[in-house]
């Protein structure tokens, strides 16, 4: 029922210069790898990107950054990327840093038709500067507005042909809210199954939020491999 693209190139064909994109993932986990590569290939410019992080220097959104395709980045933590630092310091990129929970809720609100909400995060800090502060029950909250995007690029483990999605473990992260907040949502999935093969009680993203599907293998690069024995970190 939903278009299944034959290539990542075809999937991103309608994304033009100046578009606002939401891109799923936390770190490198749950990022739509192949759609990002296709955007690099397409060399679409002046993008506003809403994503928790901005990839690393050689993978994920870091590739768009390196190729100078991002005009503005909205995220919560962008510290894994030297090129990002260079572009910020040289004024080549505009950055809007948002507390992670506020970012998640702004996106959730966008998809849910809630234009604004009050949250405690950021009250009394530079995040709340210029924003309305109001007291409820003796505690101060800041008014935050919702986010939507022209396109949401998400990654899931499985989709059926209706477009229902199921995510793997912590690869869920921002993907479900972005699927809902994108005006046109493209899901890059590891496997497309027949409609009816997924348990309706176990759907993470109902098909109504998905406008197109791409089946693609995933590299799933690991940012910090930590092992319980022989690993570099003492925890565990």
């Amino acid at each position, binding site marked *: 029922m939903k278009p299944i693209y034959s290539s990542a190139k075809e999937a991103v064909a309608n994304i033009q210069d100046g578009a606002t994109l939401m891109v799923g993932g936390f770190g490198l986990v749950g990022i739509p790898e192949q759609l990002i590569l296709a955007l690099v290939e397409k060399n679409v410019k002046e993008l506003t990107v809403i994503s928790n992080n901005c990839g690393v220097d050689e993978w994920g959104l870091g590739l768009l950054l390196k190729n100078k395709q991002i005009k503005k980045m909205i995220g919560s933590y962008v510290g894994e990327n030297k090129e990002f630092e260079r572009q910020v310091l040289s004024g080549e990129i505009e950055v809007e840093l948002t507390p992670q929970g506020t970012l998640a809720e702004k996106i959730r609100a966008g998809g849910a038709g809630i234009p604004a909400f009050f949250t*405690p995060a950021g009250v009394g800090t530079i995040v709340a500067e210029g924003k309305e502060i109001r007291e409820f029950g003796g505690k101060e909250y800041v008014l935050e507005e919702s986010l939507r995007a022209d396109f949401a690029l998400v990654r899931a483990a499985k989709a059926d042909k209706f477009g229902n999605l199921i995510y793997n473990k912590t690869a869920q992260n921002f993907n479900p809210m972005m699927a809902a907040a994108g005006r046109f949502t493209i899901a890059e999935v590891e496997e497309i199954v027949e409609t009816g093969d997924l348990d309706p009680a176990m759907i993470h993203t109902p098909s109504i939020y998905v406008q197109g599907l791409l089946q693609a293998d995933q590299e799933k690069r690991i940012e910090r491999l930590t092992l319980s024995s022989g690993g570099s970190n003492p925890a565990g």
Partner: protein
Amino acid sequence: MGEVNVRERIARRAEKEIEDGDYVNLGIGMPTLVANYISANKTVVLQSENGLLGIGPYPTKDKVDPDLINAGKETVTSIPGSAYFNSAESFAMIRGEHVDVAILGGMEVSEKGDLANWMIPGKMIKGMGGAMDLVHGAKKIIIIMDHVAKDGSAKIKKECSLPLTGKGVVHKIITERALIDVTPTGLELKEVFDGFTIQDIIDSTEATLIVKDVIEGVN
């Protein structure tokens, strides 16, 4: 006291603030170490703000799943009874005061419990991640950090000089030298650790400390 001992002492003392049955969020860095010292007598469920309740140990090589990480982006496992969810649900959990304890790192804490732990002016701003949400959500916010900065200057101050993460959010400070409670009337020195005197703590703390019932020689 070596770096490892400092971190271990802080982590061990922080662990004592966790009760059986608690849901706990451990921040990135030193707070993550607290997990290593959780008593076998306690059932503690660790929350990871990227969407996991029930973090397990780091995986053995054959158990690594690239799709399973903690908020520090380290590969982890999950325990029986764990649950995965999206980031909005994760922060609903945090913001809605469901997490019992959050243990976070700090750069500075003020007399009123203000916390600064996310940016140093003049340096590249990497972002606050989930810290600004966490400090408003968990029922108990514990800051663990070195008592003084590398240059010897105080980190527990009258007012924070660095940009804030949250205002009036800290409940407890644990360093390698002392345990300090944030109370409505100010910072109260509760415990002084072995190797330090009450006067040492007062001297290395810019904020005024209430000194009433202090336990000394804690190890």
